């Protein structure tokens, strides 16, 4: 199959949805303000990005700044979650005394929805970047941690035996055997984590921060600018998609050795 016809396949469903939506909102079934047509949304979005005719009013031309402030929060919270989640996950998976000491606490904190931390986060960190970063961290940390633990625990014991037979110290085992063996599982956690990260940035921005895509979304809702609400939603979706694609790219580079033995290789 040619590359062109493949990209066609990907485009069919979105194009159909957009066309149907455009027709419904132009038909006047609903007031135009409540369900703006895709063309209207696109127009406002474009002005939000490029600032040519003030359709987006105060937001006109400010998209990049908004997107960037959201992205920075995601990057900071997610970065901390990756570093701590992977390290702690390896420690919990490897040393049973660490597991006994920490696991019960973690299992009690894990079911608490990160969103319910918002009041505490605001009390601790005030209204600025910090509570948002904290929430992003909470959202991404647990999936990364749980998947890392799983990856370490399911590492093949025979590989560890083989490596220690070649003189590996404990630290070398962790670095040269356990970590690479856990990597597929860690990446699964990273991908779940990045979704949670965007979700919580937006949530935090709707409540505790006065900038970013989530803030614009909530603010536009107060002003009944549903076109901008939709443009903000689309922006978040787009950035989420791009970051996930980046992680996928990183993953296929790091796990290229898996290709010969997994279903992925079917696609060629």
């Amino acid at each position: 199959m040619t590359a062109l016809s493949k990209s066609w396949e990907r485009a069919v469903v979105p194009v159909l949805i957009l066309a149907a939506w455009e027709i419904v909102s132009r038909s006047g079934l609903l007031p135009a303000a409540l369900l703006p047509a895709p063309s209207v949304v696109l127009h406002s979005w474009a002005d939000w990005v490029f600032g040519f005719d003030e359709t987006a009013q105060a937001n006109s031309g400010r998209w990049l700044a908004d997107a960037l402030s959201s992205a920075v929060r995601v990057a900071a919270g997610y970065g901390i979650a990756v570093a701590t989640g992977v390290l702690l996950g390896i420690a919990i998976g490897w040393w049973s005394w660490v597991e006994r000491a920490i696991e019960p606490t973690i299992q009690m904190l894990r079911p608490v929805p990160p969103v319910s931390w918002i009041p505490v986060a605001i009390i601790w960190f005030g209204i600025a970047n910090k509570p948002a970063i904290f929430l992003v961290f909470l959202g991404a940390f647990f999936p990364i941690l749980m998947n890392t633990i799983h990856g370490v625990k399911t590492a093949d014991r025979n590989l560890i035996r083989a490596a220690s037979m070649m003189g590996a110290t404990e630290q070398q085992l962790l670095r040269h055997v356990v970590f690479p063996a856990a990597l597929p599982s860690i990446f699964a956690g990273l991908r779940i984590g990045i979704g949670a990260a965007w979700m919580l940035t937006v949530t935090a921005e709707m409540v505790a921060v006065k900038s970013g895509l989530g803030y614009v979304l909530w603010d536009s809702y107060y002003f009944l600018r549903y076109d901008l609400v939709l443009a903000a939603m689309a922006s978040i979706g787009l950035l989420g998609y791009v970051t996930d694609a980046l992680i996928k790219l990183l993953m296929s580079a790091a796990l290229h050795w898996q290709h010969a033995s997994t279903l992925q290789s079917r696609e060629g």
Partner: protein
Amino acid sequence: MASIELQNITKIYSDAKRKRDLLAIDDVSLTVERNEFLCMLGSSGCGKSTLLNMIAGFEKPTKGTVTVGGKPVDGPGADRGMVFQQANLMPWLPVWENIAFHLRLKGWRKADRRAAAQEFIDLVGLKGFENHYPAELSGGMSQRVGIARALLMNPQVILMDEPFAALDAQTKMDMQEELVAIWQKQRCTIVFVTHSVDEALVLGTQVAVLTSRPGRLRERIELDLPRPRDITSPRFNDHKRHILNLIREEGLQQRQVAAA
């Protein structure tokens, strides 16, 4: 000096779940001299792997001592090479990196590791597959990588736990020939676990026959057969008949014990 010495080894596995202890090895003493090729024969579950794992340092004997090269074994280490039944290669490393894994642990630079690996890649006939990943290898090729990986450490002692069990007859024969050639060239001590009488007779300078559970040393047989071994020769068959008789008696006794 003896290369490997097992002194009155007893191994009891305590089974916490079933609240019962299992006597796996019962008072085995065995010395393996330098440059010997000892094949350990015994029925399934008689404790061959257990013995080998104690020499490797994965298991500790309940009673008795294991020494290798005069030093008591207190854990796995690079002075002994181990070839497993499943090759146990790191799936994320290409063939040459697997073979040179020991050097990676010693902190060698990539170019040096690559150069050092080549000799062993050639030795086991894997030229052209250096950059393949384990998932892209056949079973026999993976086993060769496992053997090359053990040889690269240039250990005095190589432990092999049914390394050819999963191979087809033809590949198995090729690998046996290669292994003997390597052993003659590298002058090391090999302990080779198998449950195939033929394999033991083709490879070993000595055969140790274990009894079935609990594992005891039933008999130790010197093989003074010329190499390459002729599996149709009368002397080969005399040995084979003798060993098969031992095993048959063993089976009879087992059944009598079970019936009593």
